[in-house]
C-alpha cells in the first residue's frame, strides 16, 4: 500500500514538472510535419507484437491453467500495449497537419426578403383578441377537466387491500414443503418459519416466524391475552422498517448474563422483544412486527386464531399500526 502511494506521488510530481516547463512557440497551423520517425515506428510495432504475444498467452493459459489472476494480467497487458501503440501512432507516426475547410455561403439575400414577407403576412390572419380568447377557453376547459375527473377515483377505501393477508381463523401453519407445523415442533430457543396452508407463500403477508417462550414470562398487551397458547408466539417475518425477512433470533441460553429473547432483522438490526408482542427495542423500525393469534387444534396442529394484528411490511406514509 505504501509503495502504491509513493508511486502515485511520483506520477503527480512528474506531471507538475511537465506543466511548469515554459511553453515553446505555437506550431504553425499550416505546416505539414511528414518527417519519418523510425524510432516511434519501431516502438509501436514492438508494442503491437508484444500485445499479440500476450493475447496468445491468454488463449494458452485459458486452456492450460485457467487462473483468473493470470488471465486478467495477460489480457490487461495485451490491451494496455495495444492502447499504447495506438496513442503512439496517433501522436508520432501519422502526419500532423492542421487544415482549414472552406464552407459554403450561409446568407442568401433573395430568400431572406421572401421569408420576412411571409412572416409579416401570417400575423394578419388571426386578431390578437380572438387568439387570447380561444386560448383562455382551452385553459379553462383543461383545468376544469383536471378538477372534475379525480372524482371517479373516490371509491372503496384501499386500506383493506393493503391489509389483506391469507391468514384467517382456522388457517393452518405449514412448513415451506407443506407439512403442517405441530405445536411440539416449536421448542424453546428455536425459530421456525411457517406459511399459511393452501396460500401463496410468496405473498408478503404469508411468512410468519414462530417461537416459544415460557408462559410465565409473557408480557403481551391486554387485548392480546390468549393469542399465545403454551407460550407459542407467531409474528410476521417481514420487517416493519424496510421489508427484509426477519431471520435472526436472539435466544439467550442464560438471560442474566446476556440479553433477552428478541427477533432481529439482518438488514438494519431492528430488534423486536418477542415477550412484549414484538415491541421495537432497538433499530430503525417504527412499529412492532404484526402478531398472528394462534390456537392449537386437538391433533396438535398450529392454527391461526384470526388475522394479523396490523399492516404487513414497511412503515410507510401513515401506516403506524
Amino acid at each position: 500500500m505504501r509503495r502504491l502511494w509513493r508511486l502515485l506521488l511520483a506520477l503527480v510530481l512528474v506531471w507538475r514538472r511537465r506543466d511548469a516547463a515554459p511553453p515553446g512557440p505555437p506550431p504553425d497551423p499550416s505546416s505539414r510535419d511528414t518527417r519519418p520517425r523510425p524510432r516511434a515506428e519501431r516502438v509501436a510495432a514492438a508494442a503491437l507484437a508484444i500485445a499479440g504475444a500476450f493475447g496468445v498467452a491468454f488463449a494458452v493459459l485459458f486452456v492450460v491453467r485457467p487462473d483468473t489472476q493470470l488471465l486478467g494480467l495477460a489480457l490487461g497487458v495485451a490491451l494496455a500495449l495495444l492502447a499504447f501503440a495506438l496513442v503512439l501512432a496517433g501522436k508520432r507516426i501519422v502526419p500532423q497537419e492542421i487544415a482549414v475547410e472552406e464552407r459554403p455561403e450561409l446568407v442568401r439575400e433573395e430568400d431572406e426578403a421572401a421569408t420576412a414577407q411571409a412572416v409579416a403576412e401570417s400575423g394578419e390572419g388571426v386578431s390578437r383578441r380572438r387568439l387570447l380568447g380561444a386560448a383562455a377557453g382551452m385553459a379553462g376547459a383543461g383545468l376544469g377537466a383536471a378538477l372534475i375527473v379525480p372524482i371517479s377515483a373516490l371509491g372503496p377505501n384501499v386500506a383493506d387491500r393493503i391489509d389483506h393477508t391469507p391468514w384467517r381463523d382456522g388457517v393452518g401453519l405449514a412448513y415451506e414443503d407443506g407439512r403442517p407445523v405441530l405445536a411440539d415442533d416449536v421448542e424453546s430457543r428455536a425459530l421456525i418459519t411457517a406459511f399459511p396452508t393452501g396460500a401463496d407463500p410468496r405473498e408478503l403477508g404469508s411468512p410468519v416466524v414462530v417461537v416459544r417462550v415460557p408462559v410465565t414470562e409473557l408480557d403481551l398487551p391486554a387485548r392480546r391475552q390468549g393469542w399465545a397458547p403454551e407460550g407459542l408466539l407467531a409474528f410476521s417475518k417481514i420487517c416493519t422498517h424496510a421489508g427484509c425477512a426477519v431471520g435472526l433470533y436472539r435466544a439467550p441460553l442464560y438471560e442474566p448474563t446476556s440479553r433477552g429473547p428478541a427477533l432481529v432483522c439482518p438488514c438494519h438490526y431492528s430488534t423486536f422483544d418477542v415477550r412484549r408482542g414484538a415491541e421495537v427495542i432497538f433499530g430503525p423500525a417504527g412499529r412492532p412486527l404484526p402478531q398472528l393469534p394462534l390456537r392449537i387444534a386437538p391433533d396438535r396442529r398450529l392454527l391461526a386464531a384470526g388475522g394479523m394484528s396490523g399492516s404487513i411490511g414497511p412503515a410507510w406514509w401513515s401506516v403506524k399500526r
Partner: protein
Amino acid sequence: MSRRRALFALALVAGTLAVVGLAAPPPRAQGPADVRAAADASAIARGRSLFVSGCSSCHGMDARGRPGRGPSVIGAGAAAADFYLSTGRMPLAEPRDEPTRAPPAYRRSDIRALVAYIAALGGPTIPRVAPQQGRLREGVHAFADHCAGCHQIVGRGGIATGAVAPPLQEATPTQIAEAVRIGPYVMPRFSERQIDAQTLDDLVRYVRSTRHPDDRGGWGIGNLGPVPEGMVAWLLAGVALLIVARLIGERTS
C-alpha cells in the same frame, strides 16, 4: 498472513483428527465391563474435582448454577461441555462477558474428564457428524435457511444486536454440529425435526468448504461481499483510469 495460514493448518489438522476419531470404530472394552465402569467412574471423579476448582464459582459447587452468575449445567450434556471447553469459550473471566473462541484452557485429558462429569449429570450426547457424506448443494441451502442471517452466507460471521456471530472457519465438524444442537450463548438451537442428521452432515460439509472458497471471480477480498469489492474497483481501478486518461489526453496552451 503466515499466522493465519498456521491457524488454518491447525484447524485443518484438528478437523482431520476429529474426523478420523469419529470415523474410527469405538474402542473395544479390553476387559470385563466393570473395568470400563471403573475407568469412567475415575474420569467422572477427576472431572468433578476439576469442576469444583475451575467452574463452581459461577455454576455452583453442585452444578446447579448461581443466580445471576451462571446457569445450571445439569442436563446440559456432553455436547455443551465439549463445545464450550474445546473452543475455549469456557471458562469465562467475567460471567457477563460474551464467550468467544480462544485456545482451550484445559488439556485434552482434562476436557475429557470434565465432559464425562457433565455427561454423568444427564443431557444430550456429542452429536455424530460425517461431513464426507454431506451434499454440498443441500448444505448451502440449509445454511442459507438457518444460519446465513447471522453468520453470512460465506460463514465469515456477523452480529446480532448485543452479540457477535463468530466466523466459522476454525470450527471442527463436531463443534459445528454441537453448536447447531445446543445453541450456545444467544444462538437458537436446532432440533432433529428442523435439521435432521443428513442435513447436518450437508451443513457441516458446506461450512468446512467455506475455509477455501473457490473465489471464481478473482480475489476473494475478505469474502465479505460487494462492499469491499466496490471499494477496490472505485479506489484503485478508478484512479488508474484517471491517470491513463490524463496521460493520453492532449492539452494545448
